[in-house]
């Protein structure tokens, strides 16, 4: 190293240190400005939520004054003809709850099975790439699930599951007694299940991994098998976390729009209330997506935003409940160390 370069180095060092340390007064002001800036952006989150509530409230004010909140929530008509306009959200609330319910009934047991496999059975060499594949499933946009459901899955489910169910159970149980078409509540529920499985299973896996090994060792030392260990020591310990993961999945299913729009059959009015497993139906979000650009009157637009308001209330309750339960066990977050 030559003399010159040392000289240069100290020069740079001095400049850097004078930039970093600076003089006291400027330092104080700089800190205050920075503090104000980050505080302001953090407060922006609060502002957004206020905006969300405000805009949904303003947008739906018209329909709630026209039908009344109770009237809107319990009404079944959806009539956009001028002069006879009447809007009710009940069929879509039922459609939403039913499709999400089917999704949970199928998705939760499967997710727990996957989490059990990843956390308790598989070696880390197998578990880590497998977790990646399952999380990849979560990264696929819902519109692509919808496209696949509409052009591929619909025919598979009709031929292999719905028609046999209809043929065997249909004559005896009214719940199965409708000729299946492939576009109905049942197929929507199943595709929703496929969509929420990665979410529930990856959080459940983390919850189960967070259970201390001493819990397992205690059960093993009593002679329990692997399944008994999970059933008696792991599941009860992580119960709130597992429940929270499932409710988080429910929140996703309730709010999901695009894939439901493509596969639920898009019924309107009283006929959208599913009376059988294979009925065409409609959810809150799918009706909004379907009619928003074609709304013919301000009242209809307001009714659609009113559906959004009902959906907002529904998902807020679900999500806050889930987060409170999960945060007892582990933090649900994309960052953080394993």
């Amino acid at each position, binding site marked *: 190293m030559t003399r010159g370069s040392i000289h240069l180095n100290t020069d740079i060092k001095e400049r850097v240190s004078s930039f970093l340390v600076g003089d006291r007064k400027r330092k104080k002001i700089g800190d205050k400005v920075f503090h104000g800036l980050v505080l302001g*952006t953090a407060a922006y989150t609060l502002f957004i*939520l206020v905006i969300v509530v405000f805009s949904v409230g303003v947008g739906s004010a018209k329909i709630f004054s026209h039908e009344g909140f109770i009237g809107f929530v319990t009404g079944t008509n959806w009539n956009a003809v001028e002069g006879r306009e009447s809007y009710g959200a009940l069929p879509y609330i039922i459609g939403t709850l039913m499709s999400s319910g089917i999704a949970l009934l199928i998705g939760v047991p*499967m997710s727990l099975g996957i989490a059990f*496999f990843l956390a308790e059975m598989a070696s880390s060499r197998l578990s880590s790439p497998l977790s990646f594949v399952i999380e990849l499933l979560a990264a696929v946009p819902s519109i692509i699930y919808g496209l696949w459901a509409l052009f591929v899955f619909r025919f598979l489910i009709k031929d292999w599951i719905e028609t046999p169910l209809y043929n065997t159970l249909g004559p005896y149980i009214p719940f199965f007694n409708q000729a299946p078409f492939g576009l109905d509540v049942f197929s929507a529920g199943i595709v929703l299940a496929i969509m929420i499985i990665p979410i529930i299973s990856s959080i459940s896996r983390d919850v189960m991994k967070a259970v201390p090994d001493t819990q397992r060792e205690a059960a093993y030392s009593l*002679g329990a098998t692997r*399944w008994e260990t999970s059933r008696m020591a792991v599941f009860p310990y992580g119960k709130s976390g597992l429940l929270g993961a499932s409710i988080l999945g429910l929140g996703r299913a309730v709010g999901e729009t695009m894939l439901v729009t493509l596969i639920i059959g898009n019924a309107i009015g009283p006929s959208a209330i599913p009376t059988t497993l294979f009925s065409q139906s409609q959810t809150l979000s799918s009706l909004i997506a379907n009619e928003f650009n074609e709304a013919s009157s301000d009242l209809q637009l307001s009714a659609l935003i009113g559906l959004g308001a009902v959906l907002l209330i529904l998902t807020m309750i679900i999500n806050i409940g889930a987060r409170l339960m999960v945060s007892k066990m582990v933090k649900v977050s994309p*960052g953080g160390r394993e």
Partner: protein
Amino acid sequence: MGKKDKLSGEKSRNASSDYRQIFHEVSLKHASRRRITDKIISILAIVCVIGAIIPLGSILLEVIKNGAAVISIQFLTQPPGSIGSDTGGIGPAIQGTLITVGLASLIGAPIGILSGIYLSEFAPTGSGKGVKERAIIFFANTIRLFNDVLTGLPSIVIGIVGYVTIVLAINSFSVFAGAFALSIIMIPIISRVTEETLKLVPNSLREAGYSLGISKSKITLFIVLKYAKDGVLTGVILAIARIAGETAPLIMTILGTSLFFTGLTGPVDALPLKIWRLASQPYESAHAFGWGAALVLILIILILSASIRIIAQGKGIRVRTGTI
């Protein structure tokens, strides 16, 4: 497993309590049945894993098979031809997605990162002492809760927000409304990841900075943020991957069009929106184009997801693609 059962049997002989003895005898008696149950459950768990992977395989296979058939230079760059014909392409949709997502990132990334910095560096955790400290903790916890609530909001509701606040205000469907709506989805994700990553930065680094007399703002920006830049970057990419596939908020904000970008206050098209419109048309050629658009979209998202993986690799960053 068999070894363990035998062990417990031996122990039971020395057990003093009758109850324990009975318990172990019963468990020995049912040992084979219990082992079979264990096997059955294990097999069921494997079936669940396979059951989850089959749809992924099928989706990827169908998208690649059907999408590759229509992809060409013309398909990627041209505006769509007349409805029902198989001419033209999805150029405006690709361009629109890039513009809308880019603009949303310009709004969402700085806000998300700065709010994450606030939560990690300026808001103490735990129970505070004074009134002021308690107030700050309460404020920070409220922001964390609101971030969680925002993450869980259905995207269609966020679309309504974009519609009421911007589309109605400027009386036109616009790129800006779409970007604003998408930024609402991004901010809580980025803020959360930033907070979590910054919290992992060792405190000794900050202390070293303080000991040299460096101001807090510079320590945060040039030491803490620099140390955690990979983690923050994965958060930003994660959020971009998430919004690139969003469809519902775009229906009521950017509307969709068959023309190229005309200006920030005019409507544009986007890939997910295009897929939806194409899938809803009754023409075979439209469906084929839909698969093509799906292939382009899934490639974009897979590349983003893979890059997260590459950045995070070996750095102890745990990333959950898509499950926030």
